[in-house]
């Protein structure tokens, strides 16, 4: 086990393999495939939020708004213009990115609880807008979404989602290891020194939100395609808190951490949703326990199994 964890390429390969054969492991069961897809969507969302919170040191309690925005962008645009999916998905991301400027630009001046409240307000506003802008969103009724003909099968689209998730994970890890990733962490650790080294803090703070929103919007778009339907109540404040919990419990500033958190918090509701309120209780307790006793997150337990990293990973953690 230790050997596998140490060899990064090996365990990454195993994970990819697992993702690819999953449908066959569960006999193409719609239920489990949907569960897996949901996990993927949350993996993307968690990684995206991690850029903002873990690496960038900001806070956002409104990610649900980006998921909704992405989903609706896909739904509305596919109805109005019928664009192909490989244009629509990134476009949904771009649109969500643009929408995020509403909170991304003010975010420059806000910090801590002010930013938390503002993002919370943003996250609460999007469903309200979706509910009331009936000419655009058909309000309460929601919009149905059709997959392209050649991808209409569940199995085929499953691989689209897995592929997208892997690509996004790769891109985000590239960003994190680059000068841009360092700029984010610099802003987190010392805005003053960051400015002295030429980092335009305001620009990068906004960028963090836009990039995070871009990927979360794509995740929302994938949701729309898979479940075939978007409605205003799909994602709410509890979703935002869930995603935040994933990042914190899994481990801040750590891509594996975000993945672990996402998988965990997708699986837990699967078991606890049977009892009303139980999901919230368990998730909340997990968050509380981690912060109180192991604030570096679950991923730090795995790190203890490995020997110290060879490569320079920009690890954050609180």
């Amino acid at each position, binding site marked *: 086990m230790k050997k596998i964890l140490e060899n990064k390429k090996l365990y990454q390969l195993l994970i990819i393999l697992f993702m690819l054969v999953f449908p066959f492991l569960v006999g193409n069961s719609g239920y489990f495939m949907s569960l897996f897809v949901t996990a993927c969507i949350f993996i993307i969302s968690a990684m995206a939020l991690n850029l903002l919170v873990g690496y960038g040191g900001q806070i956002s309690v409104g990610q649900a708004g980006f998921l909704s925005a992405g989903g609706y962008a896909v739904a509305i645009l596919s109805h109005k213009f019928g664009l192909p999916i490989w244009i629509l998905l990134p476009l949904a991301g771009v649109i969500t990115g643009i929408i995020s400027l509403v909170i991304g630009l003010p975010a420059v001046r806000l910090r801590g609880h002010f930013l938390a409240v503002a993002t919370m307000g943003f996250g609460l506003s999007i469903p309200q807008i979706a509910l009331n802008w009936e000419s655009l969103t058909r309000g309460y009724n929601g919009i149905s979404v059709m997959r392209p003909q050649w991808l209409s099968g569940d199995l085929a689209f499953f691989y689209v989602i897995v592929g997208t998730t892997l690509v996004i994970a790769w891109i985000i890890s590239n960003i994190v290891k680059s*000068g*841009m990733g360092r700029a984010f962490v*610099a802003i987190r*650790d010392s805005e003053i020194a960051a400015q002295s080294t*030429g980092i335009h803090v305001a620009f990068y703070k906004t960028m963090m939100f836009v990039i995070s929103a871009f990927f979360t919007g794509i995740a929302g778009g994938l949701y729309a395609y898979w479940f075939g339907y978007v409605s205003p109540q799909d994602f709410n404040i509890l979703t935002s808190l869930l995603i935040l919990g994933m990042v914190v419990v899994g481990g801040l500033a750590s891509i594996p951490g975000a993945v672990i958190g996402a998988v965990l918090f997708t699986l837990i509701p699967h078991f606890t949703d049977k009892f009303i309120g139980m999901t919230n209780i368990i998730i909340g307790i997990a968050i509380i326990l981690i912060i109180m006793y192991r604030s570096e997150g679950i991923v730090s337990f795995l790190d203890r199994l490995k020997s110290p990293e060879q490569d*320079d990973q920009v690890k*954050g953690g609180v």
Partner: protein
Amino acid sequence: MLNFENVVVQFAGLTAINDLSFDVSEGKIHSIIGPNGAGKTTVFNCISRFYTPNQGSITFSGKDLLKLKPHQVIREGIARSFQNVELFSKMTVMDNLLTGLHPILKRNIFFISLNLPSVRRSEAESRKKAYEVMELLGVRHLANEKVSNLSFGYQKMVDIGRAMMVNPKLLLLDEPVAGMNPVETDQISELILRLKNEMNYTILLIEHDMSLVMKVSDDVTVMNFGQKIAEGTPGEVQNNPVVIEAYLGELDSDVKAD
């Protein structure tokens, strides 16, 4: 090269800098000394554009610095280290140094996302430069250590190293040897002299350690209560009665006559 002209800085009634004028000549090592609270770090913070003077002008090679925002200062060739070591505490030494190169690195998000060869190449070159700087500072062995694990002395070295990464024209060092033992202090003074002689840096230095100041400085400006009270070569300043009186209040047992 750097010119302060009648600069006044006030904070809500307190005058931190009062009608300060001085010049830093190119290629020289210029020290600012003075008792605590004299306004020395405020001078640096003005150059870094964290503060804006209420009056006066600051120019660098003829260019008006006051027009710039803080993140634009380094692009003019001015880099600094900090009194309290503003390092990126959760990053490694290597990453801290790499951040120092930010003005030069590629910023194209598309290239970065796809980890294109040009991005990888510039990362590799940056790392090479970082190792060079680490060699100069004698911290090569700490390359992958998290800076929060380092002693204060080593942290200060990394802070200075980060400023050196862009080969600045003007290097601002705020109390570079504070908290260092005599061996480290010697290392730094050697380094400062090398930077001037071999790499033609201009250096503006704030320091309390008189031996260092006397050893490396070409020019010295003495401040007290936000004003310049004396200026000249180290020898001139050392024997200036006004300067001595300003320091009488301070029991500085480190003052060694040269």
